[in-house]
């Protein structure tokens, strides 16, 4: 496969996954803002959303004070913000357009339709009406994209690069969400419990569609370390770091050309952390440190994938 084609496929999938995750963070933050909590200002509540998605400096420069409507506009619709839902979906569609030949017809049409449908939200004040609807729409279009590509594409390298993009991006997003939220919710060994905590933790779980899974797996009150375990180590939880790497490693094995050994090594090393790691040890090391290191290593893996497959050199 052409390196440029692989590059477009990989980034197309990453951008769709990114749009979905931004929508999840917006959705969950908005829902949390509906729970009365005197201790939290509007800014306290919405700043983490910016931290997760990145771009807090750009926000301060362009919008100033952190407000709900500002953050929603910035993260959902801002055409200047490269990490807005708008920009991510636009980039996804541009990448798709460049490789429409390689996608199954249904996959291309689905992404094209996504972009055409996006038009209905342009110019709307989402904070006033329809933020929930918007986030649901983004999520369901992303589900549809994965379903259509999974259900219609040949299991060749094109499909592998697409899946690779999805899971590298998802792992990054899950780690960021957990890191930012965990940090905020658990200042220095404070007691947990109480109604607000319950809402906050359940909101995080809902952000990664893990609320029902939690109930099923633990059938117990929501406790922070169990949430972390679910999102880091549980292989059967589809948005956990472990689950992402259980997808990534075999894909890199299959893509193994003569250059891919460093990619495989990096991915295998990360995979091993989740396969053989214990939550107790992770907490001892510090969850924040663990996640920070993971985000860095995952980024390195992305760079290595880029170097190995996507910007192929021109010597025979």
């Amino acid at each position: 496969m052409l390196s440029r084609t692989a590059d477009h496929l990989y980034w197309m999938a990453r951008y769709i996954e990114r749009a979905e995750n931004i929508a999840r963070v917006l959705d969950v933050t908005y829902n949390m803002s509906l729970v009365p909590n005197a201790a939290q200002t509007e800014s306290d509540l919405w700043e983490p959303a910016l931290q997760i998605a990145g771009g807090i400096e750009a926000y301060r420069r362009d919008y100033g004070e952190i407000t709900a409507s500002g953050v929603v506009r910035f993260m959902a619709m801002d055409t200047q913000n490269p990490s807005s839902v708008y920009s991510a979906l636009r980039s996804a569609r541009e990448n798709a357009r460049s490789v429409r030949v390689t996608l199954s017809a249904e996959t291309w049409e689905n992404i094209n339709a996504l972009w055409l449908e996006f038009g209905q939200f342009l110019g709307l004040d989402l904070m006033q009406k329809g933020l929930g609807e918007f986030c649901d729409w983004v999520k369901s279009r992303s589900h549809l994209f994965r379903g259509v590509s999974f259900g219609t594409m040949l299991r060749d390298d094109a499909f592998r690069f697409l899946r690779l993009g999805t899971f590298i991006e998802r792992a990054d997003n899950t780690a960021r969400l957990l890191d930012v939220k965990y940090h905020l919710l658990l200042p220095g060994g404070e007691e947990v419990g109480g109604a607000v905590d319950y809402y906050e933790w359940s909101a995080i779980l809902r952000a990664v569609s893990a609320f029902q899974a939690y109930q099923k797996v633990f059938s117990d009150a929501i406790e922070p370390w169990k949430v972390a375990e679910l999102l880091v180590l549980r292989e059967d939880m589809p948005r956990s770091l472990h689950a992402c790497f259980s997808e990534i490693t075999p894909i890199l094995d299959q893509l193994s050309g003569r250059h891919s050994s460093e990619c495989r090594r990096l991915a295998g090393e990360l995979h091993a952390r989740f396969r053989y790691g214990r939550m107790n040890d992770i907490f001892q090391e510090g969850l924040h440190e663990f996640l920070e290191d993971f985000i860095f290593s995952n980024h390195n893996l992305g760079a290595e994938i880029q170097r190995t497959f996507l910007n192929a050199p021109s010597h025979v």
Partner: protein
Amino acid sequence: MDTAVKKLFDEMYLQDEAIRPIYAEYASWLEGVPHQQLESKRQEAELLFRRVGITFNVYGEDAGAERLIPFDVVPRILSASEWSRLSDGAIQRVKALNLFLHDIYHDQEIIKAGIVPSTILSNSQYRPEMFGVDVPKGIYAHIAGVDLVRTGENDFYVLEDNLRTPSGVSYMLENRKMMMRLFPELFRRYPIAPVEHYPQVLLNNLRAVAQAGVHEPTVVLLTPGAYNSAYFEHAFIAQQMGIELVEGQDLFVRNNAVYMRTTEGPKRVDVIYRRIDDDFIDPLSFRPDSMLGVPGLLSVYRNGGVTLANAVGTGVADDKDTYIYVPEMIRFYLGEEPILSNVPTYQLSKEDDLKYVLAHLAELVVKEVQGSGGYGMLVGPAASKHELEEFRQRILANPANYIAQPTLALSTCPTLVEKGIAPRHVDLRPFVLSGKTVSLVPGALCRVALREGSLVVNSSQGGGTKDTWILKD
């Protein structure tokens, strides 16, 4: 119907409003369909085309702005016997043009014989780089779009030959798919010849022109990229043929061969179906500012390390200046009488012709010799006094840059417009494929000028397209 329209040949109606036999069944079907229903089919088609992304980019508008080419739901219908004459004529023409191209880049017998003047060698489309270069099977124009117009029951004219990178075939294929979806009952009822095998025929031909000794040739389609006006078509054809769609940056030259950059390392390329003009194909040989091409490609090509389709230098044969000699070429190379006629053409480089044209400007169509796509063209009868005067000055400034032709009364075809069904002017572009054999699939791109009275069918100038049906008599 006003009298001006009535004089024209219509594909469906005879002068006395009777129906031409080939349209008989369709017309009776059409009569029973309310206008509103056709309109809703048209809207459905538009929606589907947009969803599939069958769009083209218009130069000069917002970067990346995408538009649909209007699609008309009323087909143009030709009988099998009409088609067989058109198709024989187009094949004959393309055979002669390929022989001409080989000749003009080798022994130049046709100049020696005094049929084509030697001034052709200074035409800007003549590529001296190609002199003495042998191309596989002697084929230069692997894909040729022959533009035909009709003025009467048996009067067809060739308006021009497109031998560089002719486009539009994706609309022939997509329009057919759309018609089958919108009106399946019509396809059950009529024996409409299929066109869907076009990509397969093209691929077989392209494989057949690989360098000698290559058994499993790798064929790719070279596009200028996603922002080119015809990008959809490039992507579509590549997909239909199952070949890679590459951009210049994906290819590189090493050791007298062309390679593409793949995730598994470099891969040799044997045949390039290129949709980039000569000028942009190799910055080392042609335009140095081209970002679209592949440095060094021409030198590999000249050494036989790769095949280009179409060949470099075909422009000299489809130039409007060369057009007038095509009937003579057919006689010279094939020893046959031309099956299809040329439109009588005045060359403004000739003094008598210039004098005549300037005196009759309001009746004629004047074209730039090297123009394309309906730009830089004057339609005398439709032009204002001011436009005529302006064009007269442009001609006088450089007469050799223009040719003129009588305004042909292009045939009309019933077309769905706002008010209902009305006649609109049409042309026809069948695609002749050369390689293993010289052939056409039974169908063509039919372009229609949607504005009332307009003769300009180009999509860049507000033209639309129709499906073309070849029916058994």
